[in-house]
């Protein structure tokens, strides 16, 4: 049962930030509510004030610039991202990830800002955006600050957001030439949350040698985790499936998955190992 709350409907980002500065941690921003309403119904979150920003069109946009890259406003729905022509063309890994995120109904109403603010370690967008080098911009009456998305997550369902801050935008840089990305989650139903998910980005030089690799593990710890040792094993090397299997093993040792009803810790580590190997192959082949 959802606890009673005061419903606030700001007409602008400015007004939303003013409300946040007044009510602080007694309030909660609601956008699509596809995650928040569930935890409110379970009684885990019971804000006194709900600040509804779903209708704020000033944060509903997808823009692409050849220099600055991709900018996605916080209230943009998953479905809009999935269907965006420029994202399909320039960042197909994002469109594919969105296509497998929950159901069409959820994607139609749920938003990218809400998903990231919820900070469920099993969320799909974070690992993919992190390997792409995405940044997130937070805004409050005091001003804006931008950080790497991988620094945004602090703990289970906990982020760097201060109580007066709101997510404004997500930025994804233009990929260097000869870069490839891949993401896969392991689950029982196609669009379930991942029991484990792995995102990989690799960049090669003209000789086919890997100059940059980013590997991010979803639902293998409290927050999306960069597998830095596994990345190090791949950088400076050429396509080598034996090496990728080794990198998978390394990744499985540098994460901290839990055991729960869906999978044991041991099985999750196994999945990280297999998916890392497969995604390295897939990212290489995507170039």
């Amino acid at each position, binding site marked *: 049962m959802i606890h009673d709350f005061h419903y606030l409907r700001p007409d602008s980002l400015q007004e939303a930030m003013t409300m946040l500065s007044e009510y602080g941690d007694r309030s909660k921003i609601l956008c699509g*509510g596809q995650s928040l*309403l569930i935890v409110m119904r379970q009684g885990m979150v019971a804000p006194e004030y709900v600040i*509804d920003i779903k209708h704020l069109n000033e944060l509903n946009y997808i823009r692409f610039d050849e220099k600055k890259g991709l900018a996605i406003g916080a209230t943009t729905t998953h479905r809009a991202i999935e269907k965006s022509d420029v994202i399909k063309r320039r960042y197909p890994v994002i469109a594919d990830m969105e296509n497998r995120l*929950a*159901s*069409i*109904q959820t994607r139609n*109403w749920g938003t990218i800002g809400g998903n990231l603010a919820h900070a469920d370690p099993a969320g799909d967008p974070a690992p993919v955006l992190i390997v792409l080098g995405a940044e997130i911009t937070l805004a409050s009456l005091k001003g804006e600050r931008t950080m790497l998305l991988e620094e945004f997550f602090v703990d289970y369902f906990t982020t760097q957001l201060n109580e007066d801050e709101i997510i404004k935008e997500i930025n994804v840089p233009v990929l260097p030439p000869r870069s490839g990305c891949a993401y896969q989650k392991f689950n029982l139903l196609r669009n379930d949350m991942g029991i484990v998910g792995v995102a990989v980005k690799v960049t090669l030089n003209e000789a086919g040698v890997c100059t940059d690799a980013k590997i991010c593990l979803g639902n293998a710890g409290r927050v999306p985790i960069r597998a830095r040792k596994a990345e190090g094993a791949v950088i400076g090397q050429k396509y080598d499936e034996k090496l990728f299997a080794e990198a998978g093993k390394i990744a499985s040792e540098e994460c901290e998955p839990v055991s729960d009803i869906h999978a044991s810790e041991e099985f999750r580590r196994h999945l990280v190992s297999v998916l890392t190997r497969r995604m390295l192959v897939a990212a290489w082949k995507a170039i």
Partner: protein
Amino acid sequence: MEKKLLRFKLNGLEYEIFINPKTLLVDVIRDHIGFTGTKKGCESGSCGACTVMVEDMAVKSCSVLAMQVEGMNVTTVEGLEKNGKLSPIQEAFLDYGAFQCGFCTPGMLMSATALLKENEGKVLTEEEIREGIEGNICRCTGYNSIIRAIEAVSKGEYKEG
């Protein structure tokens, strides 16, 4: 709790109601207005029985705060028929026996309608249809009859009106 005014259109009719702002869309539709075609299943966004269309988009009405459809058009299964005639997808569901217990049917019809609207004039593949109803769970049919019904409408075997 202070009640809030919500104005929206349901199946073409305008409604103005005062509600506790925590009320979910499914409860406004079923309990405040009285259209009980829309079903409550899991109440956690998993089963799709409560699917309605908001501005022709399928959404799960158990996971949408009613206040968020202010000024919008909402369609439920009751809004599919026109002038007393069932819509093409409803006719097709009957012909293909696309249900048994019927509990998922209103939500399934709304997802199918949204899918067909989005792809008007296009013949959908089986995979596209399966993807279109990915958010709706049916315990009875094994989905095949539902997919055949949607396929038939997509191929133009049923005409509006």
